[in-house]
């Protein structure tokens, strides 16, 4: 750290204190814990600015915010895991005494003995710390890999394969209520509404051909040449339109996030707008 860094840090600390005092004064009318709340709002604001400063480049303020974030949030999730899984799910099944201590309802059942298995496997996992018995930690990992593979096999087969295949059955020549109303009406109703015959048909054709060629693109065991290569080419085009469209569609949501943070700074902290 050189001298200018010290000066910058000093100025920021002074600004922080100033903001705290001003905020507390401004809150003192309506809030009896104005000193604490003034501090909390000032801190939230400075942490927000610290993160934004990363856009310029890495700096001590960002490092501070980052390190604080990591420490606090790691403890946050560990505590949540302790209260919800250990106290909420494990203890009621294994121990009446502890259940009473933590004031959770005990759930006796002859099958509860099975819940010692994850406990034992959990302890085996901790064997990782031992040089000699470290290999034992592979057993719980093997159980987890088996669980994930087994559960996802059917889950994805259903939701990503069967459902998507069957929802691609589309009529290519129209259906009720898109009855044939003559050539003029067919061409001129090019709109989004359900009456737009040509648009509806176009949609169905694109869904059918797009899915078909998209699948062709993913083929591994066939060289993408000839007709097959052309279909795969169309598949890539469809994927590219998909990616471009989804990207563009997301922008609005992302801007809203920034609007939210800037509004916090201008309204809750600086009180520039109401």
């Amino acid at each position: 750290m050189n001298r200018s860094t010290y000066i910058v840090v000093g100025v920021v600390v002074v600004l922080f204190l100033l903001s705290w005092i001003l905020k507390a004064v401004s809150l003192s009318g309506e809030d009896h814990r104005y000193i604490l709340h003034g501090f909390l709002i000032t801190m939230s604001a400075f942490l927000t600015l610290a993160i934004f400063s990363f856009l310029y480049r890495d700096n001590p303020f960002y490092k501070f915010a980052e390190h604080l974030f990591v420490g606090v949030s790691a403890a946050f999730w560990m505590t949540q895991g302790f209260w919800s899984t250990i106290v909420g799910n494990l203890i009621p099944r294994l121990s009446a005494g502890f259940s009473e201590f933590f004031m959770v309802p005990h759930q006796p059942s002859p099958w509860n003995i099975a819940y010692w298995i994850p406990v034992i496997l959990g302890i085996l996992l901790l064997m990782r710390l031992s040089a000699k018995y470290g290999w034992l930690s592979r057993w719980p990992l093997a159980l987890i890999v088996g669980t994930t593979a087994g559960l996802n096999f059917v889950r994805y087969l259903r939701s990503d394969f069967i459902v998507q295949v069957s929802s691609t059955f589309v009529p290519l020549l129209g259906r009720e209520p898109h009855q044939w109303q003559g050539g003029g009406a067919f061409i001129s109703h090019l709109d989004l509404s359900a009456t737009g015959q040509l648009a509806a048909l176009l949609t169905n054709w694109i869904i059918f051909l797009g899915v078909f060629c998209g699948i062709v693109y993913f083929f591994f065991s066939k060289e993408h040449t000839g007709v097959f290569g052309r279909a795969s080419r169309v598949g890539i085009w469809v994927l590219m339109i998909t990616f471009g469209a989804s990207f563009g569609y997301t922008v609005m949501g992302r801007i809203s996030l920034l609007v939210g943070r800037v509004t916090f700074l201008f309204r809750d902290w600086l009180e520039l707008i109401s």
Partner: protein
Amino acid sequence: MTFHRGRTSSLASGFSARLIIVIVVIAFLAAPAMWSRADGPDIVLAGSDSALVSLAPVTSLVAADNTYDNGDALRLTWVPSIDDRLIDSKIIGYRVYRLAGTGEPEAIADLPPGSNQYLDETVLRDSVYSYYVSTLSERAEFPSNRTAVISPQREWINLDRGYLFLIALAIAGAVIYYVTVAKRGKKLFVRKIAGLEAIDDAVGRATEMGRPVLFIPGIHDMDDVQTLAALTILGRVSRTIADYESKIFMPVARSLVMTAGREVIKSSYQAAGRPDAYSDDMVNYITDEQFGYVAAVDGIMVREKPATVFLLGAFFAESLILAETGNSVGAIQIAGTARPAQLPFFIAACDFTLIGEELFAASAYLSGEPRQLGSLKGQDVGKVIAMVVIMIGVISLTFAEAWKIEFMQDILDRLSVVFSTN
């Protein structure tokens, strides 16, 4: 026709109406003979002068075992009361009563008008039950006949999922078939996947530049199959890194992934004959918090300036934050995820992107081992199945809709049954 699963919806509106129903129920239970006098002062709504109207009870009430369960549900079906109409209906709903063995009737659910079935999931195997359903008006109940007694049965095999089983068997069979074919030594062709071809170069680049390789396995835990895919790729990548004597750094968002990641890298270093070069510091747990993890990884990227960044696994909103920061430090980035919503961002900001299925195929492809390549060929059989089914489905639906051809409609119906999920 709505189907309700054990959910009680409050139908009686306001306290007074509810009170009336309670009184009516008591009156009904106590003395059925009181019916004719049921419009006595006790149960007439203040300010209302209409007399009690009689409503038809539900008919054809049948209780049956819910099929293909562990014997813990019974299914009731009935024909709604003939007074249950869309407009000007006097019916405010139906109430289901259950009698366990020879016990007292117990109200177990209130259903809205128009209901014609109910699934009771609060029964025990080997107990006997009977039911009746009351038609509710504002002020009275009109019970149906009781069902015959029934007890829930346990089934050992879910025949409803027969087609699911067949589809699973077809695809799994194809995979296993090609695995064995490949094992016997038949050469199988697999096309080039650009992102994977680039891995060796990317790792080599890191070695030349003397900078580390950063491996991000997504932010989900080991219960996400994408994380497993990332770890299998890590197995191949870290082997290359060990051979090239590059450095790898892997910050993770889950403790379990840290443990597994260390196991993978350690084994790869052992396999490469350099067990002493491995250190636990290669893999570090940061925090479970999505954006806390992102903040830390962004910091690592700008401070360590990795030459190569792998972003493989389950990614959410952070995909673009990580990829843009990685890009700003000039790293070669190879990304892959099976989350369609995040693929656009990887496509935009990374040098190579493994799209969906390619992520799962990557490890097999990299191994170059015949059995693994065989499984990729098996997957393609699944694709052929999908294409053929889509083709038949589209053609039959098109013909059935456009020219009302019965035979095509039959094909479509059959196909829809096979490709339905339950």
